[in-house]
């Protein structure tokens, strides 16, 4: 209360001074009128009244201005704090005060402290409101949302999670995510591998997974989700990783059924084929030496037909995969002459039974290429198979490989048979398209070239054809040297590159090497 006592003293002193001045003026007025100027009568009365009239005007003015000064400063402080006027009013400077300064400074300090407390309260309320709305959003989200802390423990799960995963939020909270969720991924690109490679290396990161299976407690069937993860190292609440699950169980089940129809058909075709090829081999081994020339030829033809059928079954499967966007390639560094010779060797039997010789001319010092050896095998096998089919009485097929002017490895298959009419050439790589003129003479579905083009495209190469009726056809395709592929894929020493038949998909190794 010391400030207030001092204020009263100062107030009293100023009041005293003002009254003193007032009285002094009146006395001085009287003295001047009565003693100096010596006025009398009406003029004296008027002159004597002058001083009180003057002070009646002067005193309130003086008192008001002086004595209310502290109040003005406090008022200014309040305006400065108040939210509606804060921006237009400057902070008061109570040190300019001539009296009541200590009290005013103290009061203003108190006011500012109060204001900051109120401001803090407001913020707390706002955050609480925000927390409530965030919680509302999380709970209303029709997707399971799971939040992990820095040790991969579940710190939050919304109620939808319960419905999907059959575990209560209370059960999930505090558990390690890998214990709580029985997840399996289609590759070694898993949640744990992502978090392991992200933590300590990135501040924020996002990742997505498809076809994540999550097993349910006490059930044989698992659900299939797409999973999206967001990682944030610096989250002040300790919410380091957010996971959102998208239930695609039904969609994937349908995909799998469509695919599994083809897969099962192929399986059923392949089993008898395996046996046929096995028995043909046994017969060839046991009886071969004793057979006459005609029967030996029949045996070879039977073997060649079985091989051809096996190749066709692969074609069906791969076309189904391309249609379903499921054909993926693993591009590895390969020795191209070895790949070519491997295909030529396998197709030689089929050519041989038709009296055709496959001749190869492979340039020396070809660079290694980046190819998926299974798929590119099928490209060359299909081109050779066609060349054999359409050779029509001619007895040679040439396979050449060299480095072309663009620095790509170009491989050509040249036959001297029927050839293709120019009107048909533009459609030759379309699905199910076949040379109408030839349909009656030669079997085939028109899948082979369509498939070959899709595979070559996916390798980043090009396929082309030059043909003349009755002179034969030359099919050529390019593949990239492995060194160029690495540049294109920015793989940085990655030994394997994954692509699907419609372009790049991802850029990580699924292989151990």
């Amino acid at each position, binding site marked *: 209360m010391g400030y207030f006592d001092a204020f009263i003293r100062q107030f009293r002193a100023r009041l005293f001074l003002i009254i003193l001045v007032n009285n002094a003026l009146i006395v001085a007025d009287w003295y001047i009128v009565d003693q100096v100027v010596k006025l009398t009568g009406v003029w004296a009365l008027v002159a004597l009244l002058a001083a009180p009239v003057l002070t009646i005007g002067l005193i309130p003015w003086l008192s008001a201005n002086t004595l209310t000064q502290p109040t003005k400063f406090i008022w200014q402080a309040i305006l400065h704090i108040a939210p509606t006027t804060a921006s237009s009013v400057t902070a008061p400077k109570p040190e300019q005060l001539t009296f009541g300064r200590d009290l005013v400074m103290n009061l203003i300090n108190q006011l500012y402290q109060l204001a900051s407390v109120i401001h803090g309260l407001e913020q707390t309320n706002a955050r609480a409101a925000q927390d409530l709305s965030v919680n509302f959003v999380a709970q209303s989200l029709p997707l399971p949302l799971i939040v992990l802390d820095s040790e991969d423990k579940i710190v939050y799960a919304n109620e939808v999670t319960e419905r999907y995963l059959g575990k209560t939020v209370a059960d999930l909270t505090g558990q390690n995510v890998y214990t709580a969720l029985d997840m399996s991924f289609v590759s070694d690109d898993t949640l744990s591998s992502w978090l392991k490679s992200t933590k300590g290396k990135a501040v924020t990161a996002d990742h997505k997974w498809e076809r994540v299976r999550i097993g349910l407690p006490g059930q044989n069937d698992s659900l299939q989700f797409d999973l999206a993860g967001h990682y944030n190292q610096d989250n002040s609440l300790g919410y380091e990783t957010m996971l959102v699950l998208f239930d695609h169980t039904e969609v994937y089940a349908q995909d799998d059924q469509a695919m599994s129809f083809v897969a099962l058909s192929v*399986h059923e075709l392949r089993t008898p084929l*395996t046996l046929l090829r096995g028995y043909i081999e046994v017969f060839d*081994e046991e009886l071969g030496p004793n057979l006459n020339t005609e029967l030996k030829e029949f045996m070879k033809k039977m073997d060649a037909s079985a091989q051809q059928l096996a190749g066709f079954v692969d074609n069906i499967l791969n076309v189904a995969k391309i249609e379903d966007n499921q054909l993926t390639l693993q591009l590895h560094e390969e020795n191209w002459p070895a790949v070519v010779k491997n295909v030529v060797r396998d197709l030689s039997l089929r050519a041989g039974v038709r009296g055709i010789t496959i001749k190869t001319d492979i340039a020396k010092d070809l660079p290694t290429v980046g190819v998926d050896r299974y798929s590119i095998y099928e490209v060359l096998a299909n081109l050779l198979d066609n060349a054999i089919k359409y050779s029509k009485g001619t007895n040679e097929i040439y396979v050449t490989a060299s480095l072309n002017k663009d620095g790509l490895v170009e491989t050509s298959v040249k036959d001297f048979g029927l050839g293709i009419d120019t009107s048909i050439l533009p459609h030759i790589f379309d699905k199910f398209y076949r040379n109408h003129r030839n349909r009656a003479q030669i079997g085939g579905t028109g899948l082979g070239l369509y498939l070959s083009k899709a595979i070559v495209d996916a390798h980043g190469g090009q396929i082309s054809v030059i043909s003349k009726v009755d002179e034969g056809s030359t099919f050529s395709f390019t593949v990239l040297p492995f060194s160029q592929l690495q540049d294109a894929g920015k793989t940085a020493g990655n030994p394997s590159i994954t692509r699907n038949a419609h372009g790049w998909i991802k850029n990580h190794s699924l292989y151990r090497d």
Partner: protein
Amino acid sequence: MEPAAAPGKRVLCIEDEHFISELYARALTRAGYQVDVQLDGQKGLAAAQTDQYDIILLDLMIPNITGIEVLRTLRDPRLTPKMHAKIIITTNLEQRDDVRADIEQQADGYLVKAEITPHELVDFLSHIDA
């Protein structure tokens, strides 16, 4: 007939198609392997875990326990502590490519049966086992 490539090496063929296992066993025996055949996943797994084999030929579509499950169990050191055999997948079942890559990573070889003859299998094993 080629000379015996692997005298005494033990092969377990887990294959439910009896005619196929018969053909494989014939070719492998002639090449000098000792061959046991199991027709389902459960028995195959039990045999692989109790006996010491050098090579296991594993079909994927087999009764009782799937080939993938057998593979996982044999590759998990907690479930199968001492596992020295090379595991070669021999299947006609087509997988999604990413699933196949995952299986290939766990196995020592992956063969489509329709694409090879018994002799080619023997040839493959002599290389993988070198």
